[in-house]
């Protein structure tokens, strides 16, 4: 197994202690992603506020702290819709090289994922209904590990198709069962 996957990779120097930081992946996601994320966040905010509002209206009496809790909830949901997309757009980045996929995602918590192309099993793209409005698509690259799918969120449709084609071509050339 090891022979199949590490063969062909160049011998690389073991990094020195002062170099141990990952750089940013090369590309940002499509700027329309900000609008997409804001739209979904607003929809979620409306839904949550609506539910809480109905609950509030059904209360037999309305003490001051219930009013405060409702106000805070609505304010938090709205603040999230304002702040999250901007921060997320700064964080989300991706890169595909000849040997690996590398992504960074999240806004409050962060995640960086690396999957070598020699271990990739499937390359899927996905478009939800709202994403279709914005002409965006998400690519999911899976490996033999359930813990290891790498997702590139919100690429332009045409770009996503190209990336999927490229990835399929590269990974199709790899032999072995990638476990």
């Amino acid at each position, binding site marked *: 197994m090891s022979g199949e996957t590490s063969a062909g990779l160049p011998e690389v120097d073991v*990094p020195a202690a002062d*170099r*141990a930081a*990952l750089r940013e992946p090369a590309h940002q996601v499509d700027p329309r992603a900000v609008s997409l994320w804001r739209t979904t966040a607003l929809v979620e905010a409306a839904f949550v506020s609506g539910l809480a509002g109905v609950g509030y209206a059904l209360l037999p009496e309305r003490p001051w702290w219930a009013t405060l809790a409702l106000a805070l909830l609505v304010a938090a949901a709205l603040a999230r819709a304002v702040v999250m997309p901007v921060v997320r757009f700064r964080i989300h980045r991706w890169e595909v090289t000849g040997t690996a996929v590398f992504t960074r995602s999240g806004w409050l918590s962060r995640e960086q994922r690396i999957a070598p192309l020699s271990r990739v099993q499937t390359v899927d793209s996905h478009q939800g209904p709202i994403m279709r409005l914005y002409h965006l698509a998400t690519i999911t690259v899976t490996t033999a*590990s359930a813990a290891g799918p790498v997702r590139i969120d919100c690429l332009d449709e045409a770009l996503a198709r190209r990336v999927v084609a490229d990835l399929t071509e590269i990974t199709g050339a790899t032999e072995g069962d990638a476990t």
Partner: protein
Amino acid sequence: MTRPDEDGWQRLDARMLLIGPLDTLRQFAVPVVIALVGISSSRGTFDPGLLLIMLAVPVVLGLLPWLTTRYRITDTQFQQRRGLLSRQQLTAPLDRVRSVDLESSLLQRALGLAKVKIGTGVDETRIELNALSLAQAEELRRFLLARGAAAVPAPPPVVWTQSTDNQASDVPFRNNRQPPPDDPPAVLARIDWSWLRFAPFSLGRLAIVAGAVGVLAQWGEDLPFLDAEHIDAAWRWVTGFALVLVVLATLVVALLAWLVISVVGYVVQWWDLRLTREHGTIRLAAGLLTTRSTSVEEARVRGVELVEPVLLRTVNGAELSTLATGVGEGGVTKVLPPCPREVCQEVGQAILGAPRPLVAALVPHGPAARRRAHVRAQRPAVVVTLGLLAATGFAGWPWWPPVVAALVLVPGGAAAGEVAYRNLGHLLTPAHLTSGDPAVQRRRQVLERDGVIGWVIGQSLFQRRRGLATLTATTAAGKERVAVRDLPLEQAVRLAALVTPGAVVPFLADP
């Protein structure tokens, strides 16, 4: 045994004609009895014809698997056909066979039969042959695993011998190739009955007992004497004695029951345990009533997991599992019963082929990780104390519960936090990545470097504030991930780069 037809298809063992109907009869027993009682009582008469029909149906159903299942081995594939109405053909490429399990229930053992389960590395479905003769099953196991291990790209053609002489009939997989080298199996571990002392300290079985008690309790509600009046009377009768005595007696009885259950369970499960290595496979066989044998190609065993649950650790006991790909059921297989930690370490070393990962001290993760372990361990203390404070403030409870809770839980949390931090760590050895969890239960996972597929470096909001990260090595083996928690971010990146330089170094920042 049954002889293959001209295409090489052969049936399961004919003795299944005996067992199959018995098995289905057992499954159908309850509904059949209920139906019979119901019909008879509504009609007022007992109809023997009805009984016959109700017995005949399961018997016929029990014969079906033998009648409809056939299997054969071609040059490249293992094939199985089954099904009466919807016919199904399952195939497994011979060079993809990763594990072969044999299992015999008590009844099957009496008749010398074994069920064979064949697992391939790629998908989760396993081919089941229920059942073959023991000799045939054993032969099939060795043949498949030898083929899987060899994984020859262009194998010489297998020729089915249509020999007419009777000697050949006991060797079902004759072909013109060399048999696998017959070196004797090396024994890695054998049951040692002095390990029985660990049985009561392993609480895994307690869940099963609790489940049984739960079922009994539900059932008990229907008993005629379990109503409020009787319970009340019983309670008064009990409190008439010294309550302490009653409680003590109950405790003693429960403890004795647990002793018996745990020891019996241990013996039944691990009877005649043999862990061996032969022809590049690791084989585990054990069981008193139902015997099981699991064989996994050694190259598929990507690592081991050493767990020391709190109670077991107090008596220096531990449990060992292998992390493998393509064996189904999560890929984590317990290969040793609760036994002395040293035994687990030795066997683990033999499986890994490396001495250090299971015994060497782990690299600690530093002060930030320690603070985090302590903060996490104080959560119950904070929640309980605040809850009690609220009760004191708003519900008029006395002043002392929150104070007592804080006095007990805070030191307890501090101790738990310190233990958790001591268990946390990682270690990189030439061939393996080792990780210890930050938890009171000590767990050490060892993964082959070659088994690492990719990486996830995650930082929660709190980890970011302390500059920590959780480094997850994704893998196809075991639970498909090995996480190194609360590692300083730059160390996490460095570790990933050291394990798989090819994938990580291109993404490192310039110095």
